[in-house]
């Protein structure tokens, strides 16, 4: 029997918001119609709030919060917004500017609209914790510590660190590389690669002019370390009594087998990332010029074509096929990719080992999109059913007759 679809539109606003971000224009349009109709029928505060949030998305608007040593993000206070004046606080402004440069890099160089390619807001939290030696991405926002003042200083001081954290968001919204073992090391490497590219782009440095370092400015001046990591020379970023020696390998023969536990860094995600990072460096230097142009484009498109479980070999194969697609089979760029992986002990195979290869670069994306949409629709139907049951039990508006 026919039911009036308008009156049934009691899908929770958060589900609608997700549907509004769908890749499918028809789903977006249906969700928008639903949202507007529901808002008119009910005048609900939460629905109006969704519309306000929706209006604010699409531009990657930046907000920086000051945690004043708290570790609780809800306790942090607004310090600078997209249209607001600069802060008197250096860390606030460094985070704001770094997020802006990274956003601009993704837009101008890779044609990506913020973290989710739909203008997701960029929220940064600074002065987190006491003497906190870290920066991280929590799945939604980027968080930066002040450092202990002995080894590390302010983690907003290196643009590449800010870009590294933001790129964790990009990876989560694309391949979603599992944060364990080789896929985790690829996740880490991608953040380091984009981290150095954002810095090189902002300084307009060619591959041979750049230092290829991550976190050169977050160490205290007297600590005697070049940086946290070096893509040019993994394993050689630091070597001293206090810090020990940089444990990154630069070649598969030195791959570090670590347990997939906390103390094993989830199988060495920050350790073995040195291998694909070095492959990127070798490729970029071989191609020459600006690393973000060809090499960066190849790596980014390969990230988009990868999956949660992609490992080194499959990723290498994907970069090789992407280079062929973008610059031609046997082009200088494709040869450079092959040589880059050769340099770290990985021989690319012509046929990619993943399904997301050159045969159907967009086809599999479409399948993935459809699956995502189905999952979203299924969730919304479940929510609708729960809502209907809740209203029937709770004595609200009766459910439509069956």
């Amino acid at each position, binding site marked *: 029997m026919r039911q009036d679809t308008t009156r049934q539109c009691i899908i929770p606003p958060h589900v609608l918001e997700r549907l509004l971000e769908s890749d499918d224009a028809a789903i977006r349009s249906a969700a928008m119609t639903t949202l507007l109709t529901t808002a008119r029928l009910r005048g609900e505060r939460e629905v109006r709030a969704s519309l306000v949030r929706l209006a604010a998305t699409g531009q990657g608007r930046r907000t920086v919060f000051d945690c004043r040593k708290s*570790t*609780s993000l809800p306790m942090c206070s607004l310090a600078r917004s997209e249209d607001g004046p600069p802060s008197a606080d250096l860390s606030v402004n460094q985070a704001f500017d770094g997020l802006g440069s990274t956003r601009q890099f993704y837009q101008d160089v890779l044609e990506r609209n913020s973290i989710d390619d739909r203008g997701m807001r960029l929220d940064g939290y600074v002065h987190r914790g*006491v*003497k906190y*030696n*870290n*920066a*991280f*991405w*929590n*799945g939604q926002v980027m*968080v930066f510590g002040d450092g*202990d003042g*002995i*080894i*590390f200083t302010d*983690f907003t001081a290196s643009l590449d*660190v800010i870009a*590294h*954290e933001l790129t*964790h*968001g990009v990876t*989560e919204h694309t391949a979603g590389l599992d*944060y364990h073992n080789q896929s985790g090391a690829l996740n880490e490497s991608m953040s380091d690669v984009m981290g150095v590219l954002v810095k090189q782009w902002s300084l307009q440095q060619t591959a041979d002019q750049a230092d290829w370092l991550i*976190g050169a400015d977050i160490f205290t001046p007297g600590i005697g370390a070049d940086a*946290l*990591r070096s893509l040019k020379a993994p394993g050689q970023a630091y070597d001293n009594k206090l*810090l*020990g020696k*940089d*444990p*990154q390998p630069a070649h598969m023969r030195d791959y570090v087998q*670590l347990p997939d536990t*906390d*103390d094993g*860094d*989830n199988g060495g*995600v*920050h*350790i073995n990332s040195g291998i694909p990072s070095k492959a990127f460096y070798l490729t970029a230097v071989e191609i020459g010029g600006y690393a973000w142009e060809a090499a960066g484009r190849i790596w980014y498109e390969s990230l988009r074509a990868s999956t949660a479980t992609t490992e080194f070999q499959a990723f290498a194969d994907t970069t090789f096929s992407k280079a062929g697609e973008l610059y031609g089979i046997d082009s200088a760029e494709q040869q450079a990719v092959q040589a880059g992986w050769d340099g770290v002990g990985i021989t690319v195979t012509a046929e990619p080992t993943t399904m997301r290869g050159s045969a159907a670069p967009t086809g599999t994306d479409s399948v993935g999109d459809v699956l995502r949409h189905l999952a979203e629709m299924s969730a919304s139907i479940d929510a609708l059913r729960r809502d209907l049951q809740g209203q029937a039990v709770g004595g609200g508006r009766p459910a439509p007759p069956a």
Partner: protein
Amino acid sequence: MRVSLSTHGGLAAGLRLGRPPSTVDTSALTGAEAGELTRLVEAARTASAREGTAEGVGDTMSGDAMSYEVTVDTGIDRGGPVVLRQTDTSMTAEFAALLRWVQQHLPQAGA
């Protein structure tokens, strides 16, 4: 009583690899400090049980979050040492307070 802290992961995970846990010298604590520590441990343990985050079950790491494991061995607790693990992305206020106390009482700062 023995109190130790293991810190893992993070953007600078390479620096933390293979480092032994740091241990607080509890013999130098005053009675008041020891009482404070006991209170913080109990609060962190209660909060973990309440939030279902005891030993970080189901709490996976991502995007440079660090993990912390605080081990408290009173020597008289029949259940053995108390082990509490949490991460940057899901930390109770009570665990954060305990962690801060432990970090302040470590013999030297570490990465």
